[in-house]
């Protein structure tokens, strides 16, 4: 296995980390509108991710930075090619981060309602668009001989990619509902479980369609294995939430996300961004990667830093492990 293959795996790992973690906090954001009854419950939901959402988002920044360093051509083609969708995602992430921090900074109800609406939309839109983006990457887009994207914005909105968007949206929302049931007490917990069950079934149907389509289109035996794991884990997650095993359900919905993302990357390999115009023009792990020297340095950095990051981020989850409910909210605000 050469270093550029290692980095292909590591970037897949970073995206898995991102979707696993930010997946449930996107889900929580969507659920503030769907699940919460009354504003105190909205606040409970937001507080379940309060201490961690910022750390979760850094997985994206790291995936972006790592792609820039390890596969500059991929980074350049992807972000200049998917210009407008990326712009929308960036705007959402900006507003979302500010919304979490500023919502409680004024007591007026109007102010807080506006930021709550912002949290809902800025969680929903990226959750959907990331699926669209990955759908397009796996399916291949119009890339010319100079590695430039020559398609339009509308080319990105094809049925396969849109289905991918629906899958990430429902899967993240399901993941978020399971997380909500794991982190809350009282009335909201019971409703989170009931909703998770319904969401799980919808997700299962959409995900099965999308994954089978992917497998038929560009899969091999490895991606097939990942697909089987994803599907089994999803069924397990639904079963576990049904019998009230919230911790198991959350672990399994996480595995579903991990396996599904792994499947996309396996279907992609050795391409990183296939060209739909001419297979010769595809970006691959070899023609898009950095020099072996850069990759070596990055590998050392990742080998030392990643375990540390996992350690202190897990510690955060341990510190804030207690369930919360409306009774834990301070009187003010």
């Amino acid at each position, binding site marked *: 296995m050469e270093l550029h293959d290692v980095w292909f795996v590591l970037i897949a790992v970073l995206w898995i980390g991102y979707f696993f973690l930010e997946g449930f906090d996107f889900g929580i954001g969507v659920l503030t509108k769907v699940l919460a009854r009354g504003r105190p419950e909205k606040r409970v939901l937001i507080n379940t991710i309060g201490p961690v959402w910022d750390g979760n988002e850094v997985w994206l920044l790291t995936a972006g930075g790592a792609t820039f360093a390890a596969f*500059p051509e991929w980074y350049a083609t992807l972000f200049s090619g998917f210009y407008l969708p*990326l712009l929308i995602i960036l705007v959402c992430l900006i507003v979302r981060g500010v919304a*979490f921090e500023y919502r409680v*900074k004024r007591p007026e109800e109007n102010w807080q309602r506006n930021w709550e609406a912002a949290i809902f939309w800025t969680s929903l839109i990226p959750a959907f668009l990331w699926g669209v983006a990955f759908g397009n990457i796996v399916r291949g887009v119009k890339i010319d001989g100079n590695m430039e994207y020559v398609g339009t914005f509308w080319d990105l909105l094809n049925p396969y990619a849109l289905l991918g968007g629906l899958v990430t949206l429902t899967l993240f929302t399901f993941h978020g509902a399971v997380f909500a049931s794991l982190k809350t007490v009282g009335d909201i917990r019971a409703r989170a479980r009931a909703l998770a069950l319904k969401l799980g079934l919808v997700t299962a149907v959409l995900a099965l369609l999308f994954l089978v389509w992917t497998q038929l289109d560009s899969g091999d035996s490895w991606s097939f294995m990942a697909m089987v794991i994803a599907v089994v884990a999803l069924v397990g997650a639904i079963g576990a939430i049904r019998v009230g095993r919230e911790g198991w359900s959350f672990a399994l919905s996480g595995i579903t996300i991990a396996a599904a993302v792994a499947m996309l990357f396996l279907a992609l390999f050795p391409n990183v961004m296939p060209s739909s115009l001419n297979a010769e023009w595809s970006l691959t792990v070899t023609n898009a990667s950095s020099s072996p020297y850069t990759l070596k340095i990055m590998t050392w950095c990742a080998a030392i830093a990643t375990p540390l990051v996992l350690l202190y981020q897990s510690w955060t989850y341990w510190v804030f492990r207690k369930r919360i409910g409306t009774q834990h909210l301070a009187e003010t605000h």
Partner: protein
Amino acid sequence: MDLALAPETLARWQFGITTVYHFLFVPLTISLAALTAGLQTAWVRTENEKYLRATKFWGKLFLINIAMGVVTGIVQEFQFGMNWSDYSRFVGDIFGAPLAFEALIAFFFESTFIGLWIFGWDKLPKRIHLACMWMVSIGTILSAYFILAANSWMQHPVGYRINEERGRAELTDFWQVLTQNTALTQFFHTMTAAFLVGGAFMVGISAFHLARKKHIPVMRTSLRLGLITLIIAGLGTAISGDLLGKVMFKQQPMKMAAAEALWDGEAPAPFSVFAYGDVDKGHNSVAIEIPGLLSFLANDDFTSYVPGINDINKAEQEKFGPGDYRPNIPVAYWGFRWMIGFGMASLGIGMLGLWLTRKKFMLAPGLRTGEDEVPNLVLFKRKALSPRLGRWYWIIALWTMAFPLIANSWGWIFTEMGRQPWVVYGVLRTRDAVSPGVSQGEVLTSMIVFTTLYAVLAVIEVKLLVKYVKAGPPELTEDDLNPPTKIGGDSRDPDRPMAFSY
């Protein structure tokens, strides 16, 4: 195509706007993180409540500010790929590595520990909680270091070779990229300038309260801390600025010649105090100069030769082919002066303030006339400044908050625009760095979207800051003074409200 709306021009404007805007928040974040951590340390060590109140006050303002710093930073990382894809392809092998290091080492640190700090007041023993704030501070500083190493490589490329076959620059020595003198001096200069921002911020806001005779113990401490920070940072900025200037004279002579509007090389070369010139004809029509000073700044020698803009332009034309290798000279010239002027003004006000508020002179108990009345700022032991002069001091102190921010912004505009037409000095031209596949409409859209969004957020942010500044330091509760002794919080009352919730 209309040149004013060419994708390159728009992409440059967008980069300038988003970067300067982002950098209004960054220096304040860096310095306030450390200053807040320092105040919290003082509380943990002395258990004096005024330090805890100060920590909570400045910590809150820090949080309002860092939220904006973080979200506007996301744009910076992706902008290279969106608007500057040919740049990304050409230098990704080198430039990407410090960026990835920044994310892996610094961003994770900052974002994880800041969550622990915000929500951890009732979940962590006080020493561990304090350590979290220091971790945030270390994270912000590491982040600055990696990004400045990346920027320094654009100013002065080292440790690379050109791979003709792949048509790109490739890294040969990463250690050199991280430790070259450009990176180290830029880091030193940017860090001290960041503390200039934080010091002035503290001085201004403390002055605001002291002028209204409110929250005296907390604000007095903060004022002194701010003044001391301002002075140390001011001196540091001057020293590091001089070092950085010398480095630049060697590495980017054109930038420094432009900063001085020195058209033709001279020995000894004068320092320009004021100049008005004709860019097309390449000379100054009006100039006020101090003889020999520029030679000294460049080479530590009052008589040495310093090359001028016309000489360097000619030399670069011979080396790189025909073209205009001059940056925008009025911007470089005035940017350089605004940077130094506003930076040094901050230092001067800091020194004056520290002298005026010496311990036995300021708010001296002997001048108290009643329990509640707080005396004026005094100049001599028993003689108060006239009320009018006293008021002026507070007003100037308040305005000082803006000075280092102006100095910082012009510093970056000078650094980045002074390097033009190069994006990587001597290696890659800015016009060859833009995304070829991105249309004018796309860049225009994103520029309008970001500018509008940033403007709206600026209004919201400033209003919030003002609200919390006016509110002053919070009163402490029982829970504040009795932090938990166990990680995860005490289990006394399972339904106890959280110390902080969104």
